[in-house]
């Protein structure tokens, strides 16, 4: 390790105030400190999330009544496309790994930084560059892309809108994601503290490790696929053009070979985070540690083999259909194992309903609904009926927002005192949680019903019988946004004038709670030697309360 005398000099100065070789904003945007990079991601992502929410709000407002309400049909197409691109590539995929993974992965395994700090900074720059490209594509002549985030051929080749900038943006973001994945996998292999064996790693690390592999192995496929669409648009090679012998369905296969595993890039870190939060606030050793750890790996493996369940209606062979259907059912098993283990951990626990725990419990509830409705779509016969309806929209919002989104909020409330050394107002956090929870369910649950009744997704207009459901859903979006504003405001107020937080406000047992808040640049004065598993609550379980 690095020079010891120098390390101890800086022990009291936290990473936010530490004097580096650069001043002002440069000390942040050129910093290779994993904690500063995590915060940089958080700021960038927060901005993109706000834009994504705004677009989502506009979609709901347009759909409050049939016919034109506030925008033209073409604008509507662009708005839902941008909502999808921003939320998926700029918020949900980088959400937990890039922000909290960067900040906490080295700390949780007892390291001073990730394996490749400069690569880490590069991946943030690529992330920002990709985000800017996506935004620039909106304002270039030709207008924003209107293909939906999936860029399906042949429309993505035919439309006159700025598809190429949007594709290159997604490509750049994919590259950023790959670099993060490489960094995390290497870090977990190389930088674990002495005694931090694989089975003493916190479960968040297991899920980041599995996610890292998916990022490395799946993202290049979408990279090449998106490049092929660029080539197709620019040169007319014909690979996906039926007029020249190409096959548009092949595009869908290639796209989903990445984009289904990408779903697990989104959900796995959130599952890991929930596995951190539940034991702390139930004061229980996690139930079935190795099952949760291995189920992350199983999800990463099985999740790579189910892509064609997005395409049951394109006319594949029956054999392909039922194999993909079977695999889809199988992939639900490791997810269910996790849910059972979380619930078993809660059993006979001493549960404290602090804000992070509330978000975690809502995660379990909403993820279960999202998961079960996913199984419904995995059934071939039902899929024919549900394909491309708002049932799908509701399903993936329950998993992605109700699951991962709530996971991110849980992480923010859980690690906020560690990252900034301050505590937010818990009462206000609870109220904003309730608003977000109610708003979320009022917004998305009616879409299940409407979809089941036949409301197609992505439609600008609809039949009058769907109006009451759409109306309720739009009301839900207002409650949700109100809750989100309140939550963010509360956290920002906590940042400004929150009370000083102790180094371990929740009574956690993982390594981050053994160091000062906010952590020093070096994280640990001396690298810890780990002797126990991550969640040791045995003294609570014996009845010896602290």
């Amino acid at each position, binding site marked *: 390790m690095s*020079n010891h005398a120098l390390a101890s000099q800086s022990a009291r100065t936290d990473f936010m105030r530490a004097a*580096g070789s650069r001043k002002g904003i440069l000390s942040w945007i050129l910093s290779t400190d994993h904690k500063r990079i995590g915060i940089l991601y958080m700021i960038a992502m927060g901005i993109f999330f706000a834009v994504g929410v705004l677009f989502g709000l506009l979609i709901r407002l347009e759909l409050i009544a049939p016919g034109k309400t506030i925008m033209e049909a073409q604008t509507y197409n662009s708005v839902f496309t941008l909502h999808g691109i921003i939320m998926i590539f700029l918020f949900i995929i980088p959400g937990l790994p890039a922000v909290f993974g960067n900040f906490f992965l080295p700390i949780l395994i007892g390291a001073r930084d990730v394996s490749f700090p400069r*690569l880490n900074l590069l991946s943030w720059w690529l992330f920002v560059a990709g985000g800017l490209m996506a935004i620039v594509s909106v304002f270039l002549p030709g207008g924003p892309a209107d293909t939906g985030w999936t860029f399906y051929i042949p429309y993505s080749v035919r439309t006159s809108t700025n598809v190429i900038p949007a594709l290159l943006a997604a490509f750049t973001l994919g590259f950023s994601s790959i670099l993060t994945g490489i960094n995390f996998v*290497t870090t977990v292999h190389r930088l674990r503290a002495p005694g931090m064996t694989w089975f003493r790693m916190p479960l968040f690390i297991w899920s980041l490790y599995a996610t890292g592999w998916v990022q490395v192995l799946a993202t290049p496929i979408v990279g090449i696929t998106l490049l092929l669409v660029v080539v197709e648009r620019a040169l007319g090679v014909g690979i996906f053009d039926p007029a020249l*012998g190409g096959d548009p369905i092949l595009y869908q296969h290639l796209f989903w070979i990445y984009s289904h595993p990408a779903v697990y890039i989104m959900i796995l870190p959130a599952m890991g985070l929930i596995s951190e939060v539940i034991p702390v606030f139930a004061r229980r050793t996690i139930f079935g540690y190795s099952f949760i750890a291995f189920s992350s790996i199983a999800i990463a493996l099985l999740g790579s083999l189910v892509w064609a369940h997005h395409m049951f209606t394109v006319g594949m062979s029956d054999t392909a259909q039922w194999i993909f259907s079977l695999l889809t059912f199988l992939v639900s098993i490791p997810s269910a194992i996790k849910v059972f283990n979380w619930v078993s951990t809660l059993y006979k626990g001493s549960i404290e309903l602090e804000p992070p725990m509330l978000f975690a419990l809502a995660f379990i509830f909403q993820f279960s609904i999202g998961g079960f409705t996913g199984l419904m779509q995995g059934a071939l016969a039902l899929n024919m009926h549900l394909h491309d309806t708002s049932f799908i929209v509701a399903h993936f919002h329950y998993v992605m927002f109700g699951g991962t989104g709530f996971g991110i909020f849980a992480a923010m409330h859980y690690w906020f005192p560690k990252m900034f050394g301050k505590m937010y107002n818990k009462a206000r956090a609870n109220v904003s949680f309730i608003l977000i929870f109610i708003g979320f369910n009022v917004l998305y649950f009616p879409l299940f019903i409407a979809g089941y009744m036949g409301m197609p997704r992505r439609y600008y207009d609809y039949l009058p019988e769907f109006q009451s459901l759409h109306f309720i859903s739009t009301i839900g979006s207002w409650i949700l946004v109100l809750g989100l504003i309140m939550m963010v405001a509360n956290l920002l107020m906590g940042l400004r004038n929150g009370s000083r937080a102790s180094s371990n406000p929740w009574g956690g047992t993982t390594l981050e709670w053994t160091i000062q808040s906010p952590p020093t640049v070096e994280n640990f004065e001396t690298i810890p030697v780990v002797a126990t598993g991550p969640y040791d609550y045995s003294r609570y379980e014996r009845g010896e309360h602290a």
Partner: protein
Amino acid sequence: MNHSNAVQAHMHRDDYGAKIGMWLFLFTELILFGGLFIVYAVYRFTYGDGFSLASKELDTLVGMINTIVLLTSSLTMAMSITAIQQGRRRLSIGLVGATNALALVFMVNKYFEWTAKFHHGLFPGGKELLERTNGEILYFGLYYVMTGLHAIHVLIGMVIMTFMMVYLKTGHVNKDSFVKLENSGLYWHLVDLIWIFLFPLFYLIH
């Protein structure tokens, strides 16, 4: 030791870790090309006749020369690493230079090959090509995309080699710290390996 603490904290050497990172990156490269190999496989299966017809128009001799050139460049690359391990800096620089020169020969060859095709109107959207069957159109489409992406990798490799020569000259890469050169070598062998697959797929199978 006039660096600040912040810099100190993030300077630690882990050659083994650096190689893990490089191998992971190589996986992503393999899969990047893997997507194209899938597309190739699907269309070769669908349009076997067209592919067979079109592939006869490539000059096997030029392809073979390029294969030999690239294989030799991998040899010089590997030798340059051995040279620096033995502390023979000048020899190592010369061998990396040779690798770079061979890469240039490959690119020049490729340039003449492509321009000859262009003269015959055999390029995406070209009039002559569009009059042919779908299989032939797709064959040439894939030919340009796959060898083109490979050529971009060769160019990137040449930039990396140039950096390595500078690093060897300044002593940044030396007898005791040569993981950068090793990783460049790994990358270069991958570029070579991809070509080893492209060559038979486009030039040899009829």
